[in-house]
């Protein structure tokens, strides 16, 4: 029972840290995916009073992926029936040129504002329509949640590390006598601290196993998968196999760091 408690005292904070890290990774992926989707669906419109070469517009900023002229006929399509051919020609001759500008990714509102100013600075450009109000609220909400979760995860990380260090201190007390006696007979650091490292590695492995199994379980839950699809999120973003490597590095890194603190603080008292 005492040994189970000692293990749980390390496994639980490690699990909390890994849980926070995994959710941060997932949120990051969701926002990234949404940005990609937004940029695929999003384009801004440049209106010019004279014909421009698309390359003159695209060279303004690296953010611009490509520029396409908008076909005037498709704009006038609706009024064609009620308008004579002569009037149509007249309208066409006074119509400005329209260009659809596709971006590499959906930027934040400050970058959009800057881009608008750059485009307006092109000679002949009359106005630029961003349509940002259609996309911004959801994107802003996700970014806000992501930053909040980052703060929450950092707090979780700090509390988790403090709990781990406390547990390591308890281990230090529990194993001090054995380590002292081994030191008396000349045991090198790795030998007298071997048990601590073994415990830390086993507990980090258990915490990793718990978090990975938890994420697999969530991925297999049909109600959660359906919910994610409903809100237009790919359920695969929930867990990637690459995450295991990252989580393992965090889990093992923290527990080995904690053990090293204990080992370095060891002082002979016999």
């Amino acid at each position, binding site marked *: 029972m005492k040994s189970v408690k000692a293990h749980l005292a390390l496994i639980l904070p490690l699990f909390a840290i890994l849980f926070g890290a995994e959710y941060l990774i997932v949120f990051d992926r969701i926002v990234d995916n949404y940005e990609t989707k937004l940029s695929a669906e999003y384009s801004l419109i440049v209106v010019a009073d004279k014909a421009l070469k698309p390359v003159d517009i695209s060279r303004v900023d690296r953010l611009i992926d490509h520029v396409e002229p908008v076909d005037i006929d498709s704009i006038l399509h609706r009024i064609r029936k009620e308008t004579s051919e002569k009037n149509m020609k007249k309208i066409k001759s006074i119509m400005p040129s329209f260009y659809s500008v596709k971006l590499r990714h959906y930027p934040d509102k400050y970058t959009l504002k800057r881009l608008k100013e750059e485009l307006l600075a092109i000679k002949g450009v009359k106005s630029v329509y961003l349509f940002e109000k259609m996309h911004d609220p959801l994107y802003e909400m996700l970014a806000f949640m992501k930053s909040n979760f980052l703060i929450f995860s950092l707090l979780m990380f700090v509390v988790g590390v403090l709990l781990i260090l406390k547990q390591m201190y308890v281990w230090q007390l529990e194993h001090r006598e054995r380590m002292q006696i081994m030191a008396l007979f*000349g045991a090198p650091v790795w030998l007298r601290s071997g048990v601590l490292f073994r415990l830390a590695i086993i507990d980090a492995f258990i915490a990793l196993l718990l978090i990975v199994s938890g994420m697999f379980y969530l991925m297999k839950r049909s109600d959660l998968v359906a919910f994610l699809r409903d809100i237009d999120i790919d359920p695969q973003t929930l867990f990637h196999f690459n995450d295991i490597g990252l989580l393992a590095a965090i889990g093992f890194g923290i527990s080995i760091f904690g053990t090293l603190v204990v080992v370095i603080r060891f002082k002979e008292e016999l």
Partner: protein
Amino acid sequence: MQTGEFVFITGASGSGKSTLLKSMYGAMPPADGELVVGGMEIGKLSSSRLYKLRRHIGVIFQDYKLIGEWSVEKNVMLPLIIAGFPKDVCRAQAQKLLTHVKLSHKSDKFPLELSGGEQQRVAVARALAHNPFLILADEPTGNLDDYSSQVVWELLEKANEELKTTILVVTHHIPEMLSAEYRHLMIENGVLYEIR
């Protein structure tokens, strides 16, 4: 001290007997002067060289200092494990020594399952396991009854005679059986006096 000597150091409580012993295995390096053990000056040793030196020294304490969560056999194996011997060699040597101290039938027990005298015999077996050139003993019979004390002294005497191990014992009281045979120093106010 000469190689192969058996020396007793006596003195009143607080006279510095145990401090001197601690200095000899490097737990408390000397504040001043020079202390040479096994040809090495203790105060100038790096921690890794000090640990290497300790692998050739055996220590015995009044309170035994056995590892409670290890079996008797594993406790005796400790210096051999540290020296890097294969497990079967460590086990064979531990069994040989436990037979020597008449505790082979208790090799699977844990220290707290043994009496004080038995625990000290295990501590002596551990101190002898790696055939050290020097054994340092701090009040080795301080907590023991007469019979157990006699067994411990006999074991130390045998190690000194047969293996030519140098032995330094810090004690309040020199046993009668050894009092006439070995060198006796006394420490008072930090100064060592030759008594015999």
